[in-house]
């Protein structure tokens, strides 16, 4: 705990002192007001986009207060206008790399909790940028400006997930009850696979399946050390209860055989009886009452 705390302090001091030592904003000095043409000028040439694909979107708010509307994203446009619509004098996102275009979005959206770790995310590392999922001007999903609604958007790259959620035993993603972003923060987390966690660092599974969280007096230790996925496949499974294998006894014997940590293999005759371990060991996620998880 001490180590972790001091690491955090060092990172904080590094960031704060660097900012204090250099007051000049290194993101690029704010452009002079004269470099901006004004969104009403953009409207004169780009009326179709403006009226149909900007005015009704959340980004329309950038016109308020000190915002620059279109030029908040596309950069100052005075030279673009002066050049008669010179495309080289304005930021065109189609010409930017994913990394470059994402940095422009994160200028405004980077401070929000959801987007804070995008730079170190698996999506970013695999050249998936903001504009792969969001479209400020051509969104099919209006609230978050998504190219397509979830989960179809996610399925367009993660095709295996479509098949997993179509399996008979599945989390209700296709039904709309659960969304991909309930369990994954698509903008990145500190965990692998961009999986969220509970505030205390536990698996996000416990947000819904709270009765499995414990803590229990008698812990089924791999549940806590290896995680829920040591026995379950969370997207969907061909087996009931999302189990990795079709028969519970095999799942148990894979671990509870010599030289298991403890206990060793069963003394019961599974060939004639006891063919269902969980008939007796019912509280398999952990128990407050029995060390063998019988209740």
């Amino acid at each position, binding site marked *: 705990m001490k180590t972790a705390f001091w690491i955090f302090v060092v*990172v904080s001091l590094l*960031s704060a002192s660097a900012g204090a030592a250099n007051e000049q904003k290194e993101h690029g000095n704010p452009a002079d007001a004269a470099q901006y043409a004004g969104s009403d000028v953009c409207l004169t040439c780009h009326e179709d986009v403006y009226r149909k694909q900007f005015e009704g979107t959340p980004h329309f708010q950038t016109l308020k207060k000190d915002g620059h509307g279109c030029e908040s994203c596309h950069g100052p446009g005075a030279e673009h206008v002066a050049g008669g619509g010179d495309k080289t004098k304005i930021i065109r996102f189609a010409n930017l790399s994913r990394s470059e275009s994402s940095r422009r979005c994160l200028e405004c959206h980077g401070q929000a909790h959801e987007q804070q770790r995008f730079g170190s995310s698996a999506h970013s590392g695999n*050249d998936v940028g903001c504009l792969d999922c969001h479209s400020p001007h051509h969104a099919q999903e209006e609230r978050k400006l998504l190219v397509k609604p979830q989960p179809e958007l996610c399925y367009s790259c993660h095709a295996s997930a479509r098949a997993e959620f179509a399996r008979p035993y599945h989390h209700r993603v296709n039904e709309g009850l659960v969304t991909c972003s309930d369990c994954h923060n698509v903008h990145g987390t*500190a965990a692998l696979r961009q999986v969220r966690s509970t505030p205390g660092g*536990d698996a996000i599974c416990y947000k819904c399946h709270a009765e499995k969280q414990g803590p*229990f007096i008698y812990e089924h230790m791999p549940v806590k050390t290896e995680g829920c996925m040591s026995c379950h496949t969370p997207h969907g499974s061909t087996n009931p209860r999302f189990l990795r294998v*079709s028969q519970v006894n095999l799942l148990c014997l894979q671990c509870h055989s010599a030289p298991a940590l403890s206990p060793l293999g069963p003394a019961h005759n599974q060939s*004639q009886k006891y063919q269902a371990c969980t008939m007796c060991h019912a509280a398999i996620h952990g128990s407050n009452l029995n060390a063998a998880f019988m209740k």
Partner: protein
Amino acid sequence: MSIHLDPRVHERSGSFRLDDLVRRLAVTSKLVLCVWTLFLLLPVAWSQSAGTPGGSPSSSSSPQAEITFDGYRVHQSVEAGYRVSDITGSGGMFNTLVNEHAGLRLFEQTFSMRSETSAGQPFDDLFVNSVGWGGDPNNFLRMRVSKNQWFDFRASFRRDQDFSDFNLLANPLNPATSVPTVTVDASPHQFATRRRMSDLDLTLLPKSKLSFRLGFSHNNMTGPSYTTLHEGTEGLLLQPWDTTVNAYRVGVDFKLLPHTVLSYDQFLNYYKGDTSAQLNSLPYALAGGTAVDLGLPFNTVAGLPCATPLLASGAVNPTCNGYFAYTRFDATRNSFPTEQLSLRGDYFRRLELTGSFSYSSGDARLPVYSEFFDGLLSRTRMRTSQETGSSRANRVTDNADAGVVFRMTDRLRVVDQFRFLSFRLPGVRDYAVDALFGATLLSTPNVFDPATCPPPYTAATCPQHSASSGADLTAVHDVNFLKQDTKSNTIELQYDLTRKISGHLGYRFQRRTIFDSTNDLQALIFYPSLPNRGACAGLPLVNGVCTTSANSSSADTTEINAHSLLAGFSMRPTHELRVNFDSEQFYADHSYTRISPRKESRYRMSGNYTPRPWAELGASANMLSNSNDDALVNYRGHSRNYGLNAVVNPRPRFGVDLAYNYSDVMQDGLICFNDVPPTGVVLPIVTNAKDCTGLDSGNPLLTDSYYENHTHFGMGAIMLKPAPHVTTRFGYSITSVGGKIPQFNILQPLGSLAYNYHQPVASLDIDLAHNFAWHAVWNYYQYGEKDFVGPTSPRYFHADNVTLALRYAF
């Protein structure tokens, strides 16, 4: 004789054939007639498209409408209707997989208000969407209200009716050779619970230097469920589920510098567990009429619940294991306060820093626990036991992470992510057990009283112990502890070769240290008769009573160091084509469980090709292989998934959506399985040795467990618009599973390892006049296994669901 836990639909076996599908269509002709009658009777009169108010067709081909109210653009829609449902076969499996029954439904509702000016109005945007009211198993409501720079409020309510009755799960598989033969037709662990979840989140002043976040979540799960308990035999318990979580969140974001945010969050989670358990039923009776439960397993050849559970008279054999009564109350109260501090800064153009630290000290209390058993555990002659006690556990976690993204050049980035996770779970439990003994279910369990049980302690009024009987009084003090510290660091170089080609190369190191300890201290009192039994063998007696104690403890530490090599690239050679590749090679020097990998290779490839704006083709391959080379484990496993998909909409009136996916899962490792099959049965997996404690790699007791699962998923859908206001869709999907598994028990079918699940669908949408749209859908479901059923009811079912709905947008 059979045990039904949820008797619904009559049950019939069957297997899927194409002519069966055709026959089903004919049998449901009355449903089809109903559909067509409604179609003909409805006023199918629609205005010319140019005259339809509201704009472009939606994806469901229903017209959009809009009204303006007090400076807001308002859109609303509601879709309501009726579902007809016809189910044949296993109602339990239908409810487990589909669970959509007949009745009136409010299928969907949307309401949207968007401000045109924002000035002087309480909010800029309000959106409410809800789905599935009236009896569907899944329904939700989502709402968002926001006013730029002032607040953003989001709320959701979700309700999930979760039914599970896969009858092979936890089933004793009672054989037909048992006398009597008792079939367990439903899963002893079935449940029918409802989970209601609400999430509310409010952000105040989101764009300000100081912004605030408030949140509340509520999660309540209730409903009946069943479980089992082993006391000589496995009794079926009714377990009314009742758990509640209330979670509160408060957070502050301080933008202390440009592009630098410091946040503090306080989380408070409260969990209440009030689930109890009681004996479900008493289906048998002793001579004299006293009701008793003999439990679920009936295999008299193997002595379950005993060799002769029922006498010739039909009364229960009083020497058999059985239950008169059982109750258990263990109300749990947990609280988890968590504090979190986080920072994000990218003040410098080339440097981005993130970090967070959280501390949580959770407390789980079971202040009063009580359990009562009345029956007979024949092996020990226990007739009743009363257990009371309390427990307390803690969960202390501290987590930290720090991330750096350093843009060395415009093309080269160094990304480093450090993570520290630590949890500690100490727990203490104190409980006492008071047991009484008797020879049979008819015996009166005697309390030891020196007045009625004088030396030599052979009177009939003495407790009737056997040499196998446990202590009469037991007081236990258990102390357990589990801890895991995990440190990991991932460093990666990301390079943009061009704007269309990029790659990354990285390394991850992870160290896990796991420590667990147990300490069990027992004080035991053995009354006569036979006081020198068990732990009191050979110990002195005081007034015929033996008192002793027992203590056992253990402690273990495991350290695992793991290394991963990460590599990948992505390419966009043209605007239409994109290819991604990602890989990870993992090695660990130890593992905590036998099937945790010491080596793992992971490859992921995906490609998307959009040759035309109306055509999208995709392919993916995910390959994972892992192993544990320990000589006594010899574990190998792989999971390979390959997929293809195509979405083609060349014209507004025609579209095709196709998808295919193949999944291949294999697991193979040495397991200890040394049981003796029934007489006359040969099981390849079985050996005849006596124990599995040898640690010699040549141990003949270890046998190979080979498991494989092949799953094919295919889906096709066609959309046709034969007329401007008419849309038809036809689709079909199939999930086909096959595989192999060791057969531990001759009565165990492959079950979920061999089945086909068919889901054809057809729909008709008609845009009517005045913003009305009519909608009809036919869903068919068919689940059929490809192996023998086993000693249970068949799990086959097929069902026709027809949904008729009217949608109005205004």
